[in-house]
């Protein structure tokens, strides 16, 4: 029982991070129908920005931890969302309305570019960060297996929940959310009705990148180490999560993220750590075969 509880906690923590990245994939897919392959690398850039900003704040003498963390979060989000916007502007917007494979290829190119960009600028070795938030609650006592709930884990889950609330409000209640949903349904009609499609799509990338930046920030604090390659696997898993939840569906992305996190945690806990990636991918394949629209996705009707 105790190990189960521990795996559950770890899985939900990991899943929250996947979920945050997955939202970026699912939003972009919903609105322009492409796999934003570079999104995982935007997340990596977010993690790096967090490390650099943290370092700078340390040099500037901001040592009070809560203030430093809030500043790091804000700056990392601003810087990273600029990257998200720039990627869209440079690599995807010129190809809008082009054939389907073209933006996918530029996305792969962008992904390679960003990875090497960071590797060149910041070096290939991974960056360790001293632990900022330590400590944990012990949930069980008496038995030989102590279930730990780390403060960092609480922070991650609470931040994710808070972001989801804000994000849901943004999508359902604000003009931006309305125009986003309008563009998702029919770009041409939306533009006829006065929605600035380019701006809306750009902002979609900004929002996606911001969420990825938060995820990167939290991963940096959680694991205490980043390198230029973390974006690839995290990106693929987050995409898997988005597909699992039903691509285009925002709650689905979060649900899929949590599920992938849980699958990974339980698989590595009960079976083998080596094959945890295989587990995630196998689940993806099975879901796609038996329920191609994902768990919460709408069935799409193919029109002739």
């Amino acid at each position: 029982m105790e190990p189960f509880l521990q795996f559950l906690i770890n899985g939900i923590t990991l899943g929250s991070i996947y979920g945050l990245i997955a939202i970026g994939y699912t939003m972009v897919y919903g609105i322009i129908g492409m796999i934003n392959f570079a999104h995982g690398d935007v997340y990596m850039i977010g993690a790096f920005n967090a490390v650099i900003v943290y370092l700078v704040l340390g040099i500037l003498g901001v040592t009070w931890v809560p203030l430093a963390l809030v500043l790091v979060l804000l700056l990392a989000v601003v810087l990273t969302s600029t990257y998200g916007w720039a990627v869209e502007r440079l690599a995807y917007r010129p190809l809008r309305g082009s054939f389907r494979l073209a933006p996918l290829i530029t996305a792969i190119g962008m992904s390679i570019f960003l990875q090497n960009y960071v590797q060149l600028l910041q070096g290939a070795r991974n960056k360790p960060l001293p632990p900022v938030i330590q400590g944990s609650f012990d949930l069980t006592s008496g038995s030989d297996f102590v279930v730990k709930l780390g403060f960092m884990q609480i922070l991650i889950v609470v931040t994710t929940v808070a972001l989801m609330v804000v994000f849901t409000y943004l999508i359902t209640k604000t003009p931006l959310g309305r125009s986003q949903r309008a563009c998702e349904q029919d770009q041409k009609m939306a533009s006829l009705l006065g929605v600035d499609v380019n701006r809306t799509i750009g902002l979609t990338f900004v929002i996606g990148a911001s969420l990825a930046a938060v995820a990167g920030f939290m991963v940096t604090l959680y694991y205490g180490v980043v390198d230029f390659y973390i974006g690839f696997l995290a990106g693929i898993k987050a995409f898997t999560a988005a597909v699992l939840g039903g691509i285009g569906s925002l709650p689905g992305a979060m649900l899929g993220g949590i599920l992938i996190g849980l699958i990974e945690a339980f698989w590595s806990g009960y079976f083998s750590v080596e094959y945890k990636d295989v587990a995630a991918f196998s689940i993806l394949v099975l879901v796609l075969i038996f329920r191609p629209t994902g768990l919460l996705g709408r069935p799409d009707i193919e029109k002739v």
Partner: protein
Amino acid sequence: MRQTSLFDPAFLRPILAFLRPILIDAAKAAGIATLLTVFMVGIRTVDNPQGLQAEYRFDDVFTAVAIVFFGRIALSLLSGGRVLAGLVVVGGFSAWMLIALLTVGETGIGLLPKPFASTVVCWIVTLAAIGFSLRGFFLLTRGDKGAPAVFKEEGALSLRRMTPWIGAALILFAFVMPWFDFANRRIMDMAVLVLTYVMLGWGLNIVVGLAGLLDLGYVAFYAVGAYTFALTSFYFDLGFWVALPVCGAMTAFFGVMLGFPVLRLRGDYLAIVTLGFGEIIRVILINWWWFTGGPDGIRGIPRPTFFGMEFRRKPREGEETFHSFFDLDYSSVDRIVYLYYIILLLALITNLFTMRMRRLPVGRAWEALREDEVACRALGINPVNTKLTAFGLGAMFGGFAGCFFAARQGFISPESFTFIESAVILAIVVLGGLGSQIGVVIASILLIGVPELFRELQEYRMLAFGGGMVLVMVWRPRGLLSHRDPTVRLFKGRRTKSARPSEGTA
């Protein structure tokens, strides 16, 4: 500003009105560039025993922002009808950079200062600027869209008519190339590498270009082929020529097995599932260590033999080597040349096979399926079987290439079969123009050969590779030589051999 006494305001006002939006635009771009670079480029994190430390490089940030600012102005001028003004800006910049770079002597300081400390970055910027100047020049002299005639519709058509001749010339050149003087060991190695990718590209072209199935895990089949040869040679002592068909059969089998459950999926889902398969195969290769050697890989894979004769200096007991049999002096290049001819032949077989398949009912069904799956179903084409044949055949050629790769390297490990390989092969196919056989050759030379020439610039290689992929795609979204028109034409008056209506309909 407006009331400057030096100039007449009435003369100045239209210029200002013209420049204002351009300057604002450029300032915005510069602001974005500042946000992008100020932390990422400006501060380098260095890990010391005491923890992370920072190094500052704000001069690079400044140059990057300045380049973005002026580049944006030049771009606005070029696209805003003021071509001459734009040309002056970009051309002046190119000239500056060229002088600065070409006059750099032993001391490392030229006549003019250059913006970046790194010569490579300077050259990249310069080449980009020269590219823009050329574009501006075209705009100025031709007054139209500025594309050279080759890339226009008529140009592309005439180019297509010439394609068989170009192809024949290329093949002829490929056959005689090893006999030229410049074909030293390094060039031949490179040619073998390029041809391997040409073959992979042609194999993937069946899947992506003809059948329109987006496969992001093609490297899985390459890996299966390579490991099939490595393992059969290790456990059963098979040679290259015996193992080659085994590899092909094995990967085709894998392709069909993997394809069967997933081919019902639509484009993007298929892409991500194939990507997943690629990763699964790699993870299995790493973790199944007692069978596959794990991350250490397999070494000692036998080289291809020439009718049983090996390419080595000293023959084994009771065997002849290639050079002793033909009474030649031993030369290590011989083996490379032999490998070169093997891969050339394999690649040409792939090409010939694809070209013939396109004329068969199943090949036509592939192309029809690519264009409209619903219509195909309505016409009674079985989409699953048709896709499976494409997937399986594409996989088979990937397997042949993998087998060759293992034989050439003599050592394989899962390291060689990462996702980036899949991406490179896919990029070759898409950059070349989906379905275009000769496009694959051009794209392979561009993506594999040219970066290989710049091996010294190792660290910038992949950066330029990724950036180049984006640029070429934005420049020509349908690939360098795009033609998506069907193999079969039913136009009046333009009857090609294949257009006879009686010929097989699927």
